[in-house]
């Protein structure tokens, strides 16, 4: 029997099983009510433009990374805090297979939660703007965000006691401040990687395009590049998580 699907299923069920996922879906859908309020009485074209602006500023840059962070740090962090990790580890399975299963499950869980929010915002965007294609780029953006966050924060959750707090600090300091100030580190900014993939597919006005270009800085627009970068991050994450599971005593505490 293949154990990977068994691990993935169980981790997804655990991460999405509680009330937390409902709160996180509500958070992911944060752009929807704002879009509904500001787009009232505007033209359809302006509605689509507002959808893009609000999705990028509130969703891609702020809410989606936070939601994905919370889910990703919980993946192994919760197991460690609840002392349930031995149930997973004391099995005849390579630590790398466990790590792979957890990273896949975490990315999938984040995507499902974020996409639920995206669908709600998409529906609102479709109604007010009349353009039902606006959500495709956002769907791909949250897929990239989910994999990137899982890659970074799954091992974080295992290594650090307050991983969510540290992760929020990272989002604020690294993503929010430093990568805006120091051009050299923009290529490593997850928000920019996600935005570069989104911008490749989104239909934008000239104004929106120039704003996105300004935010991206030295990062080139391109879905392929974004996918390749998060793919590498995921591979590194599986290797790192496997190493931590294999060598640290934290798993046995």
């Amino acid at each position, binding site marked *: 029997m293949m154990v990977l699907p068994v691990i993935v299923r169980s981790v997804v069920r655990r991460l999405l099983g509680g009330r937390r996922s409902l709160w996180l879906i509500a958070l992911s859908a944060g752009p929807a009510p704002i879009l509904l309020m500001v787009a009232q009485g505007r033209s359809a074209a302006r509605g689509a433009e507002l959808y893009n602006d609000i999705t990028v500023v509130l969703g891609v840059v702020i809410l989606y990374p936070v939601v994905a962070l919370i889910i990703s740090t919980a993946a192994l962090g919760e197991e460690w805090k609840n002392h349930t990790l031995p149930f*997973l*580890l004391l099995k005849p399975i390579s630590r790398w297979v466990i790590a792979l299963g957890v990273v896949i499950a975490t990315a999938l869980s984040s995507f499902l939660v974020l996409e639920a929010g995206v669908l709600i915002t998409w529906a609102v965007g479709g109604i007010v703007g009349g353009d039902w294609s606006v959500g495709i780029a956002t769907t791909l953006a949250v897929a990239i965000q989910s994999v990137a966050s899982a890659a970074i924060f799954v091992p974080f959750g295992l290594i650090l006691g307050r991983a969510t707090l540290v992760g929020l600090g990272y989002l604020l300091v690294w993503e929010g401040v430093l990568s805006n100030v120091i051009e050299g580190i923009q290529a490593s900014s997850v928000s920019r990687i996600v935005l570069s993939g989104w911008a490749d597919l989104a239909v934008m006005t000239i104004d929106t395009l120039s704003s996105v270009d300004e935010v991206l800085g030295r990062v080139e627009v391109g879905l392929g590049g974004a996918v390749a970068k998060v793919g590498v991050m995921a591979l590194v994450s599986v290797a790192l998580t496997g190493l931590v599971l294999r060598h640290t005593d934290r798993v*046995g505490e």
Partner: protein
Amino acid sequence: MTDAMHVPEATVVADDLSKWFGQKVAVSQVSCSFGPGVTGLLGPNGAGKTTFLRLLAGLLSPSTGEALILGEPPRKNTGVYRHLGFVPEDEAVYGHMSARRFIQWSAALARIPDPAAATRRALETVELTEQAGRRMSTYSKGMRQRAKVAAALVHDPEVLLLDEPLNGTDPIQRGRLIKLMQQLGSEGRTIIVSSHILGEVERMAGRVVAMVDGRLAAAGTVASLRDALSDTPRLIRIEADSPRPLARRLLAGEWVEAVRIDSTGIEIRTTDAKALGGDIAMAALETGSVVTAVSPEDDSLESVFSYLLEIQ
């Protein structure tokens, strides 16, 4: 260490095993082995039993030495877990899962051919079939323990490590679990059960390995350990209305090592508490003292084990 620490057909071996966390030594140079049958790992709280079992299971890496399960170090070879079951002390379970799902999940991860059938058998073994569909968050502590035991048994392991499995169980559940351990041990499996209660261990284990302060204190049959315990000096307090003449009279007994008198009674250090107990009534009668209470001052398991450690 003496030969009592080792068994001829060892399936689980601790070789000079030590573990420290920063400055704290949790397990110190433990060398012993375990074979088929039930072995009780006995020791007071904080003796290092949990750390020792986690070292054996490969959940912790040893600071020095080596742990071997069926000749393999589990930390380096996860294939060992096909033959090893572990029941952790923590009450933790996956609360969102039912016991059936949890056990079937464990079976699937252990790669056994028919997880559903194995789950049914394991649930029957721990007598949890009727409640198996409920989420484990609704279970009592005893039911959680049984669910964990079933999950550890589902892949039919040759070696089973159980950390305080009787904690939180009621007397009926305890009786059932003890019977189960005995049955598993009689089938030729190596069962290591930790406990801080001698009476519990005595009921289920033929052999006992005792730990104190992270070190091995004694090993052998329960009977031999009991013999060692009967030699333990004890501190006994006697409350009496006229302690001085009573103390003078009791000092005549060869089992009395030392006496301390205060205003309300006497503290006696004795090498034979039983003999002293028999002599107190006679001494009270002879001296005309009224004895109001006799109580052991150091009858904690810790003091008994400390003594065992001293005589090694």
